[in-house]
Every structure is written in structure tokens, then in C-alpha cells.
């Protein structure tokens, strides 16, 4: 972690001057459960991508390729919306 700034260095009124910096704030540590992807089963319907309340589904060339664990909080929405006939995403307890 970078050095915390003194009161003389921080921006006035806690204004955030760099837009979109939530991306650099890592919240993955909040997770109790983590999603696990079975690449063999995934049909790349991207329902998980559109349903993720964060930006934790990583898509490349219109294919679901995995999770951004720096931001995934383990809510399980992706596993829930994954079509029942597919069940490519399942939830596992963290640290197992």
C-alpha cells in the first residue's frame, strides 16, 4: 500500500479529482464465497456479465474468460443466473 498522505497533502474537502478511480480500490477481500468457472460447460451467453453488480466478469472477444477477483465480492449472482442446463459457474467457500 502506498504511503498515506498528510493533512497538508490531501485534496480539499476529500474531492476525488481522478474520475473512475474506484477501479484501483480493491474490494475482493470482502469475499466469503468465490465463483468457479467450468470452461468446458460455458456457452458464453454473457448473462453473468450483464448481471454482475460490479465489473468482475472478464470478457474477451465476446467470450467469458473468468473473474476479476480484485473486485468480485462473491455475491453469487453470476452462479444464480447461469442457465440451469449449463451451470458453468458454481460457488465455493474462500480458502478451501
Amino acid at each position, binding site marked *: 500500500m502506498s504511503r*498515506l498522505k*498528510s*493533512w497538508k497533502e*490531501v485534496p*480539499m*474537502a*476529500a474531492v476525488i*479529482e481522478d*474520475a473512475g478511480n474506484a477501479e484501483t480500490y480493491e474490494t475482493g477481500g470482502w469475499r466469503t464465497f468465490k465463483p468457479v468457472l467450468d470452461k468446458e460447460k460455458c456457452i458464453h451467453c454473457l448473462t453473468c456479465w450483464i448481471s454482475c453488480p460490479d465489473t468482475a466478469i472478464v470478457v474477451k472477444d465476446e467470450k467469458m474468460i473468468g473473474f476479476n477477483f480484485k473486485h468480485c465480492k462473491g455475491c453469487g449472482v453470476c452462479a444464480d443466473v447461469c442457465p440451469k442446463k449449463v451451470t458453468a459457474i458454481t460457488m465455493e467457500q474462500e480458502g478451501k
Partner: protein
Amino acid sequence: MGQQVAMTGNIAVANAMRQINPDVCAAYPITPSTEIMQQFSNFVADGDVKTVLVPAESEHSAMSACIGAAAAGGRVMTATSSQGMALMWEMLYIAAGNRLPIVLAMSNRALSAPLNIHGDTSDAMGARDSGWIQFFSENAQEAYDNLIQAIRIAEHMDVRLPAMVGMDGFIISHSIESMTLLDDQAVQDFIGDCITHMPLLDVDNPKTFGPLDLQDYYIEHKRQEYEAMKNAKGVIVEVAKEFTELSGREYGLFEAYALDDAEIAIVALNSAAGTIKTVIDELRSTGVRAGLLKPRVFRPFPAEEIAEALSHVKAVCVMDRADGVNGTGGPLFPEFRSALYDAPKRPLIINRIFGLGGRDLGLHHVRDVYGELQKIAGTGKIETLAGYITVRN
């Protein structure tokens, strides 16, 4: 320069707002400040100002709109009193914490219950810890002058804090007095263009106001606010000097009236000072060395300057037109007493709460206070530390 006019305090303040020509005014009417926005809305309707007037559905909303407009980068003003100020309470802290230089005209009025619409400073005292600069005005002229100066002080880059300018409800807000208006252009030249800092409407540089600020940074931002309020003291004096050049009227952190050689003195805000000065003139003609310290600002609290001005006095009465209901005196009392704690020589100090809900402060009440101070100065003994006057016993 200027024009002599007869105006109520409210109309004088509305004229200051007309001359300031703020970008946005969001307000909700409440007695006794209603007339300020009523008159100002006439100026808006007549095209005398370019202000966007936002009639809000409550004072909480009015202050919220002011915060948004100020964050956007506008010069923003509003007016309120009493319950309106109380309803703004949550947003007052947000205006100050977000370092938004909003200027609020305040016709000071008692707080319910019991319901009362008349002048005391209970409303302002409820906001004393909110991070706002607080001015108090003896008469319409001072309210007008303070409001104009407040724009410069609030927007100063070393300060960036909101400011409220008080005057006694009805006693000043609704009484017609002779006073001088500055020329419109002179006011514009004095205040200059609005000094913005990180305005939201600078859309090429998007930013976020009011984010979550937890254990790792909240205290750093409060420390900045503390520094800003300390800086305000110097800026207030600096702006006052410039204002004197413009108007010929002198201002500082407080007014010391016959205080230099005083043996006994009163501390009082707002219009009571006028009554007290009359009694001082009377006492001085009989050889009694009575004086007055009339704070112009309560926030920032100029403790060192107060200690210097009062330490030679033998006995002081701090008069509060509000009661903090702590059972040991009004809100000015502990701060003035504390300011003198470190002085090598300090006066005996008492507190008298007076005039709540607009109860008249007569010359005889002030004479009685000075009489008691003379007794205390003579004997070195205080019989009643804090108590009420102007009340039926």
C-alpha cells in the same frame, strides 16, 4: 460615494444581495428573514440580477440546493432564521465540510418551544460548531457591510468556508434605520469574480464531491477545516481593511467601545450593543470607566485577541441572548472565560442571559449590570456567577 437611505435590516440585506448578484439563491421563507428573499425575488423578477432563484420545499432542501450549486462553481447565497436554520442543521455541516463558500443571511430568532418569532441568537448558537464563519451585526448598516465582506472571506483560497451573517430578528430586520448603500459597481469591484475551486461544471475534469472518507483520511480533512477557520481570522482583518478604504467604516474581529481604560465591561452580540453604548456614554460622563466588547465574529473565535482586549478589566459580564441550557450559563460565557484563562492578569467574569424571545433589554437593565460589575470590581467577590436578567422573578 454611496447613497444614504432609510431601510429595514432585511431590505438592506436584500440590496446587498442585489449588488452581489449571486449565481444561485435557493431559499424557503421563514419569519423574520422572509422579507429578504421576498425583496430579492422582486429584484430577480425585475431583471436587476441574473440570479437563478430556487424556491425549495424546505430549508433542508434549500441548503442542499445551495451546496449543489456551490459545488458546481457558482456564487451562492440564501437566507433563513430559527426553525429554518435548525432544519438546515444537517446540511450546514456538509456545506462546511465540502468547503463551499455559501453566504447565508440570518435574521436571528428564538427557537421553539414555546413558539416565538422574535429576536435572540439561539438559532446561530445551534450552528456554532458546524464549521461556518459567523458574523453578528449591531444594525442594518453592519448587516449590509458584513454580507458584502463575507463573500470575499468565504471565497478566499486560504479559507473556503461558508459564512452566515446575523442581525437581530425584528429589532433590526424590521426596523427602518438610516444607512449608506455603496454604489453597485463599487460592490462588484470589491467582491470581484467568483473564485472557484474544483467546480463540478468544469466537465473536462470530472470529479466526485462528498465521497466516503473513513478512518484513514476523515481526520486529515477535518484538520484542514480547522486550519481554514484559523486562517479566516487573518483574512477577515485583511478584507475589513480594504472595506474601510472603500466605505470609511471600520471593522475587525470585534468592536472595542470605550474598552482601553475600562475597569468594568460587557460582552454582547448584535443590537444589544447599541443599548449598552448609550449606557456607557451616560456612565462615562459621571466618571465610571465602563466599556464594551462587541464580537463581530464568533466563528472563528479570536481567543488571543479577546484575552488581550479584556485582561486589564477588573470585572466583565458576558451577556448571552441564548441559553445553551447546560445549567451554568449561555454559550458565549464558557468561551470568553476560557479565552482569559491563560492571561497573566484576568478579570472576574459573570454571565447574564437576557432578552430571550425578543424580550426588551432596557437601559435600566444595562445600568444594573454595570452596577453589579462595579460592586464585583470593588469587593473582588462574585455573588451570582451565571443567571437570567430581564426575567420576572
